[in-house]
């Protein structure tokens, strides 16, 4: 099953889990499954109008899904989806 890698700032909403396996065929479906599993994560990934927040970047392999097919980007059994949020600490 595809794996979503959760960045540190969001791990408190996944019970500390770093990687979460979901049964999905697209990035959009994978993220939906993720927030079904961890509902408190939802406001961090989606706007009130249900769109993915612009400060959250999703990468399939090395590529930003913005440069692929967006949330429709397909994922295979062994795909890793990286969730890359903006962090500001210095």
């Amino acid at each position, binding site marked *: 099953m595809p794996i979503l890698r959760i960045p540190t700032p969001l791990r*408190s909403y996944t019970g500390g889990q770093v990687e979460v396996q979901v049964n999905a065929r697209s990035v959009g479906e994978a993220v939906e499954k993720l927030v079904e599993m961890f509902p408190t994560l939802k406001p961090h990934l989606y706007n009130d109008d249900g769109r993915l927040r612009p400060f959250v970047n999703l990468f399939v392999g090395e590529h*930003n899904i913005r440069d692929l097919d967006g949330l429709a980007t397909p994922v295979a059994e062994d795909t890793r989806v990286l969730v*890359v*949020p903006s962090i500001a*600490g*210095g």
Partner: protein
Amino acid sequence: MSKSMLPGLTRDEILRYSRHLLIPEVGLEGQRRLKASSVLVIGTGGLGSPVALYLAAAGIGRMGLVDYDIVDASNLQRQVIHGTGTVGKPKVESARARLLDLNPTVQVDVYNEAFVSQNAMQIAEGYDIILDGTDNFPARYLTNDVAVFLGKPNVYASIYRFEGQVSVFDARRGPCYRCLFPEPPPPELVPSCAEGGVFGVLPGTIGTIQATEALKVLLGVGEPLIGRLLLYDALDMSVEFVKLKKNPKCRVCGPDADIKELIDYEKFCGVPGHDHDMGSAGKGYDITARSLAERVRHNGLVLLDVREPHELEISNLPNAVNIPLGTLAARLAELDSARDMVVFCRSGTRSARALELLASAGFSRVKNLKGGINAWAREVDTSLPIY
């Protein structure tokens, strides 16, 4: 700068930089190039410390340091350019003294002020490259836009807890910071290092990578992280790279850019341009530690502690209910909206967010402990530690 224009090295400098001169990628010409170079380090905190130390040691000719802050004891767990002896002093002065001790041949310019729209272009224009070691979103968007407008590389790094990111944003040759992050996160969704904490060695690892990239850019060697983002996780010791492309819709570096000059970055990000805890929920929503002490003595109210469970080992208030901020939305049913309640955390920032959440859920009898349990420790129960 052509080779003939580069400054020469003195006998002392040749000895000092001998290990660089032995590397063909640096050599005498590269070292002279570093001597002719200037860098602007914005922020002399966790990232700025190793960045400034290693760039000064490497023989950069001129370095600007921008920071408005003073050295605090809680900085020393990671901000290694400062020391116990400089607690209470301006960070830029503390850093300059350390840098000149390390390498007196470097010219260190200090700007003991906040990096803001009013002074940013003027400060940055005199330097070859900019290093972003800031600690908040307004300063990061400002730094990016300044670099784009001045046509300079922005060597970027940021950290949170165990995780770091590094890239070289050079809008002339690749994407800028806004191409990756068009908008900042809403302030209530991302904790800062002051609230969330940071593993002390992390800025050392990430800052030295940032300094490495700056030196590569200045020397023109290797493959700088232009169009690539390095993602580091200290816990599983993983390093990953992702590709970054220029965003055709980028508002500062795209073909239809509509931001042509610096804007109000605090307004854009909805937060102040610093990482200090304000500890206030706003007028009418706060209660001071002393007032709370009176209230606690006379009548019963609910004390809601929204810190993480491991923080309770450091300090706590008797009879407080602990519901960490991250789980509060899902646990509202445990609270009685008919009772008076005071919410607190370490410094008052997370509890101010909790108050907003509670208010939006119909809790109207809630106050925020201004300054958090640290204010209580300062003003009411001095046996408690401040952290």
